[in-house]
């Protein structure tokens, strides 16, 4: 068995296969619903309704996509340089932590606090990834493992802060940080609904990353280092420095997810701020084939499937866990479909 490239795939393939992936996901949904004794025919409608059936639903989808765009971009940037950053989760928390510290401890007025919080977050996330990258470039320590392990260390560190120095004195003992003052929060885009300016920031970042990757020397260097570090070094590209810059960019983007969740949505920091946005970011980035604008689309896809399926689980009264099953199934079907738009599997 081997994959053979398809010279000029037609629209039937490029559009049909992704559609097929969605259809397959729907079929899985129907099957699971039937297993739970619900009406399998309703599931598709309920998913669509839950993800995009109303203004509320649509904005919720955008809302859930916001942190995924940030973490997806973070991963896309890093993976381009073959820097396997599995630690977006920790960088996200680093960003959230600094956001809260600056926002609640310095007593700055909002217009001053918000940019400072964002900058601080970026810096924190960047530093978070800098360590593993320096270990990689200086000592050759595998960054997959160091970034992965840092996620656990960060989670424990946050947990300690929230039960110790950063605990909200007004929180009745519950481990959470004090809340940001009203004026230090990102305004809502639509009054009364949760969508906030973090989403707009995410879109701007996607465009920015796209510009960096395609139009700047840094983007060129990052790609060169990722594809062939030996040739890059020979050509005079400072490989170590490029990796460090990549790390700063990637860590900073992941940290913005934390900033945006805290300043835009939650207002404070808890140890369960992120339901795995850092990990899902990897999936989002790969689904987008590491293209920064594709990240936006794939984040919306991932968020839509989750929000829709989650809502369907309630409407159809089937166990909540169906949402994660469908998200996973949709992802796997979709990456496969995207591959098969360009390749076919042949014998021999």
């Amino acid at each position, binding site marked *: 068995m081997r994959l053979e490239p398809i010279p000029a795939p037609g629209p039937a393939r490029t559009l049909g296969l992704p559609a097929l992936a969605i259809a397959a996901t729907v079929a899985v949904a129907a099957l699971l619903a039937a297993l739970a004794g619900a009406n399998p025919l309703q599931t598709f409608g309920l998913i669509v309704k839950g993800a995009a059936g109303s203004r509320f639903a649509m904005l919720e989808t955008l809302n859930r996509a916001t942190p995924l765009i940030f973490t997806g971009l973070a991963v896309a940037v890093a993976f381009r340089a073959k820097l396997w950053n599995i630690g977006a989760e920790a960088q996200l928390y680093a960003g959230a932590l600094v956001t809260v510290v600056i926002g609640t401890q310095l007593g700055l007025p909002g217009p001053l606090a918000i940019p400072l919080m964002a900058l601080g977050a970026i810096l924190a996330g960047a530093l978070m990834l800098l360590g593993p990258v320096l270990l990689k470039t200086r000592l050759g320590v595998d960054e997959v493992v160091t970034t992965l392990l840092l996620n656990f260390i960060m989670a424990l560190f946050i947990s300690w802060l929230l039960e110790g120095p950063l605990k909200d004195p007004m929180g009745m003992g519950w481990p959470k940080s004090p809340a940001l003052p009203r004026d230090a929060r990102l305004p809502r885009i639509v009054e009364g609904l949760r969508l906030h300016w973090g989403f707009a920031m995410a879109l701007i970042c996607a465009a920015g990353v796209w510009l960096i990757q395609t139009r700047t020397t840094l983007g060129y260097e990052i790609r060169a280092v990722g594809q062939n570090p030996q040739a890059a070094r020979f050509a005079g590209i400072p490989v170590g420095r490029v990796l460090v810059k990549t790390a700063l960019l990637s860590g900073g983007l992941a940290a913005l997810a934390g900033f945006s969740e805290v300043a835009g949505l939650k207002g404070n920091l808890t140890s369960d701020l992120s339901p795995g946005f850092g990990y899902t970011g990897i999936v989002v980035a790969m689904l987008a084939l590491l293209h920064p604008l594709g990240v936006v689309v794939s984040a919306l896809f991932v968020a839509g499937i989750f929000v829709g399926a989650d809502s369907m689980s309630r409407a159809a009264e089937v166990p909540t866990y169906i*949402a994660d099953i469908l998200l996973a199934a949709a992802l796997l079907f979709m990456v496969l479909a995207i591959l098969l738009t360009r390749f076919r599997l042949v014998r021999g």
Partner: protein
Amino acid sequence: MTEILDILISASFWAAVLRIASPLIFATMGELICERAGVLNLGIEGIMVIGAFAGWMTVYAGGGLWTGVAVAMLAGMAFGALHGLLTVPFGLSQHVVGLGITMLATSSAYYAYRLALPEVTNPPRIAPFQPLDIPGLSDLPWIGQALFSQTALTWAAFACVAVVTFVLFRTPLGLALRAAGENPHAVEAQGLSVGAIRMGAVIVGSGLMAVGGAFLTMSAFSSFFFEMVNGRGWICIALVVFGAWKPGKALLGALLFAGFDALQVRLQQTGMGQIVPYQVFLMIPYLLSILALVLMSRRAEVPAALMTPFNRGER
């Protein structure tokens, strides 16, 4: 300091180390097999969950304990087959597929559990594996408690390391498997099928991971809980690197990790436990893993073709 010494010389501490290490050993061996063949299997966390569920459910539904282990293994192999299908012939990103499998396996286990036991509030229990009483040995003073009060599954975990070591380094199959992770072109040029070898490795490795999960519900404990795997799979990924892709060293890593875990549990009760926040103790194993990686980094030999898909007829 003397407190730590006291802990270290107590037999029960060592018994705990072996217990805590057992699921890690199974899963680490599973991951090691996959990575030796060139496939990073990030599905490990979910595959452990499905193993924990399938094994337990089998026994709960009336099956025997060993049947449960077998079913857990089969369930893990099924998800391994899916992982292998997507990453080997299709060559999809091992990161995405792994995380996808983790998500899929975990949520499938939860969904199935909820469908099977909708009205549960007190999680039901099974009669788990009991410590084997080895006449003579189990009664030995210190050793008896430290080593010979373990369940059959713990023994199986250690046997598993021996078998994996033997197969990898002493048999034609192991040679082919290692070569697939070093240079798939070499394997193909010697007339073997890289695809079949990698598929086999991922499937068998996933089976072992699932047994690691089953250990949690069938030996370490007796019920199935959501989230009870609790990141152990990710630890195993680190342990494989820590062990420089060698079963013996990885075993050592698992024991070390379990040792720190057992130690931190005990240290929390000491004078130190009063001053140092418990999170710091929980962090120790992770911090030490990183430290160990740094110390060993120069010598680690990554399988050269790890994470590189192989497609016949492409250079």
